[in-house]
């Protein structure tokens, strides 16, 4: 392990990892470019490099994309990758209040903390953590999805019913396509592109970017800019101080991020959502969440970054990647004749550990890159809306197209965007709809598989027994009751 550390700090490793980080900055900032696509595009460039440097570069991209996706989420309420959806809930209001630099510095520092924590888990706790992760089968994933759904209570604003309806719409749309259980077409309307379902990234761009642009255009007479750009002198130090002053919140977010990241099939987006939900639940002063509470930003960013190194843990312990970018990195290893899995510890142990160290150092590098880039990036809001709106639309269209090189995804994005724009006018919040898109693929297939299993051993045993199930069910009930109680209280107050 020590030998691996020295490998990771050698100049060639640092060089390539930093290139990966810089590329990740671009990939994450452009909505429509995901970490998965970024790493996939980068893989061929790693062929000429020795393996250690190659995967350090890929890891650097992945880790930085998990930070930079917060930038558009905060500035223009459009997550750069699905993992940053929860970051925008508080990040964007902060920008509107003239606290944009604070938001991005918080996201950057949070991302660094999360990455370092996740890398430490990878280096030291891989085996104990994977033992817990193996307890997650279809029923457990189902309850995890339900638990993540309970965040609607906090997001929906005034009408929980509309929040639930929004999430239901999101889940239903995510079910479009070939069913996982049988080759049955669901709502594909005979359109071949829909057989694969609605692309998550195109849908999220549609849910967040398009209504934003439409609002900007409609408000051109009233508002010339996203928000007033205020130069915030000393913001870097003061924000870092603020973040350091919430250590328990930070630790909880990191732990949630690492545990969810390690589950194959869950990943940074779910980690961020659950972390946000928990941060909200445990904080004494909930009033500012959704309105610009810095803890909303750090909860999401610490978690989605901790999930990235954690997603590598199942890869090196079970041979199964924990997230899509991890799958790409696994593919890169396999192309070099390596078999990621428990045997890799025996044959190439130093590679396994040096990768972990590279991720840890990448977290620190991301911090410095972010600090440099923040003042420049926040200046984006100085661009007047009449220029910014078309720019965002342009990027949204390119982004939606780039996912599968399919113009159909662009049409879908626009369709969903117009729909969300219209329903916002009648009180629907886009958050629950986005949530439905992300959670649908977790809840539905796992529910179906768990039901199949229960044909053999009974519903009671499958869904309602086992410590993980019971913990998740209790957490969900707690989460829902907390919201119900607080709504009840506030209604009584106004009476």
């Amino acid at each position, binding site marked *: 392990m020590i030998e691996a550390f020295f490998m990771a700090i050698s100049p060639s490793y640092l060089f390539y990892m930093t290139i990966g980080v810089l590329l990740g900055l671009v990939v994450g900032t452009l909505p429509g470019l995901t970490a998965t696509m970024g790493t996939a595009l980068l893989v061929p460039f790693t062929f000429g490099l020795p393996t250690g440097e190659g995967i350090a570069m890929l890891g650097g991209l992945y880790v930085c994309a998990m930070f930079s996706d917060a930038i558009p989420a905060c500035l223009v309420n459009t997550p750069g990758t699905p993992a940053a959806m929860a970051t925008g809930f508080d990040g964007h209001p902060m920008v509107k209040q003239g606290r944009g630099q604070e938001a991005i510095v918080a996201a950057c520092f949070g991302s660094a903390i999360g990455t370092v924590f996740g890398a430490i888990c990878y280096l030291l706790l891989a085996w104990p953590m994977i033992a817990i992760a193996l307890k997650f089968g279809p029923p457990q994933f189902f309850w995890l999805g339900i638990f993540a759904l309970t965040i609607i209570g906090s997001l929906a604003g005034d009408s929980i019913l509309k929040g639930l309806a929004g999430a239901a719409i999101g889940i239903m749309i995510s079910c479009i396509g070939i069913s996982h259980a049988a080759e049955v077409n669901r709502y594909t309307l005979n359109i071949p592109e829909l057989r*694969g*379902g609605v692309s998550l990234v195109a849908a999220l761009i549609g849910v967040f970017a398009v209504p934003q642009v439409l609002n900007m255009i409609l408000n051109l007479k009233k508002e010339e800019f996203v928000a007033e750009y205020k130069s915030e002198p000393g913001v870097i130090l003061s924000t870092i101080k603020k973040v350091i002053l919430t250590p328990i919140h930070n630790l909880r977010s990191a732990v949630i991020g690492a545990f969810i990241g390690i589950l194959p099939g869950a990943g940074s987006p779910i980690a961020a959502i659950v972390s946000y939900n928990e941060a909200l639940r445990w904080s004494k002063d909930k009033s500012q969440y959704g309105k610009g509470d810095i803890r909303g930003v750090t909860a999401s960013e610490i978690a989605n970054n901790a999930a990235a190194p954690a997603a590598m843990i199942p890869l090196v312990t079970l*041979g199964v990647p924990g997230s899509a970018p991890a799958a790409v990195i696994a593919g890169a290893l396999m192309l070099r004749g390596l078999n990621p899995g428990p045997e890799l510890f025996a044959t190439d142990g130093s590679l396994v550990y040096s990768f972990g160290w590279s991720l840890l150092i990448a977290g620190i590098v991301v911090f410095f890159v972010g600090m440099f880039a923040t003042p420049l990036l926040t200046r984006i809001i100085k661009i007047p809306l009449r220029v910014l709106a078309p720019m965002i639309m342009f990027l949204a269209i390119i982004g939606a197209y780039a996912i599968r090189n399919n113009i159909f995804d662009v049409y879908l994005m626009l369709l969903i965007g117009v729909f969300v724009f219209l329903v916002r006018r009648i009180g629907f919040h886009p958050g629950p709809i986005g949530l439905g898109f992300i959670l649908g693929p977790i809840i539905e297939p796992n529910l179906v598989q768990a039901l199949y299993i229960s044909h053999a051993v009974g519903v009671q045993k499958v869904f309602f027994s086992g410590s993980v199930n019971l913990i998740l069910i209790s957490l969900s009930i707690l989460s829902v009751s907390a919201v119900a109680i607080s709504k009840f209280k506030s209604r009584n107050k106004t009476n």
Partner: protein
Amino acid sequence: MKISHLMKGITASVFGAAMLLTGTTANAAWDCKEVTFIVPYSPGGGSDQMARRLQPGLEEALGVSVNIVYKTGGGGAVGFSELHRSKPDGCTISNVVVPNVIISSKGEGVGYKPDDFAYIGMTESSAGTLMVPKDSPYKTIEAFIAGAKEKPGMLTVAGTGGSGADRWAQLAEVLGIEATYVPVSGGVGKMMPMLAGSHVDAAATGANHATKHSGIVDSILIAGSNEVSTLPGVPTEPDWNYVVTWGIMAPPGTPADYVEALNVALNSAASKPEVREALLKGGYVPHIQTVAEVNAFMADEIAKLAD
């Protein structure tokens, strides 16, 4: 204003120069400037790896660059139908997975039939394998059969998607047992942790996956009559028909001489020692086929799965 004109001019010149520079030496049989290789499955997955394994050899043999493009979704249907719509000029190819291409073609509105495509050649195949978790009480197929007979219908077996149900039904009949089938899709990546964590009692998928994950799962039966060298000592079941075959295909109507040229290039790429070694290490059976052989193979497979 002047600066923007200057920028336009520079951009145009850069594009022009780039286009000039990407002209390449043409192959005598066809004049593609580059080849687009559509991968109908996710990056990092088996088809992606196959494409990347073959890429260097293909580029060498064809003399042009081969660009991998992902068109995922629908269990391969999106990529296959994309190929179906592509120009048959020999410049676009894709992975083909049998029987996926045949089964997915039966879906409504999918836009292709498996006999439409111009097949270039199959490169590898993998036999179906029944696996159990490392700590399973059923360490051999006999033990599994006995366990299933003790509690009919109570053991769970995971397989891929809807077609996996038919393959399991066939094996269940051969073994004379009843167990509950659990369809898993979204890649075998979900199946392995499910099995390793004992959320299902067994799983059936290709020997390549069994080989790759032999650290966390044990194999107890192989479909077909041939043993798999990477799974020593695992018995075979000739009455269980479960083979997955991978290869390359071109759009419908691709002229015969282009198909022939691509076949030659494919076989040269697939014969490279590092590719063969990777396949053997991975639990695959490598294949080299002529165009006549692949067409006969496909006709056979399509007939097997005809309604």
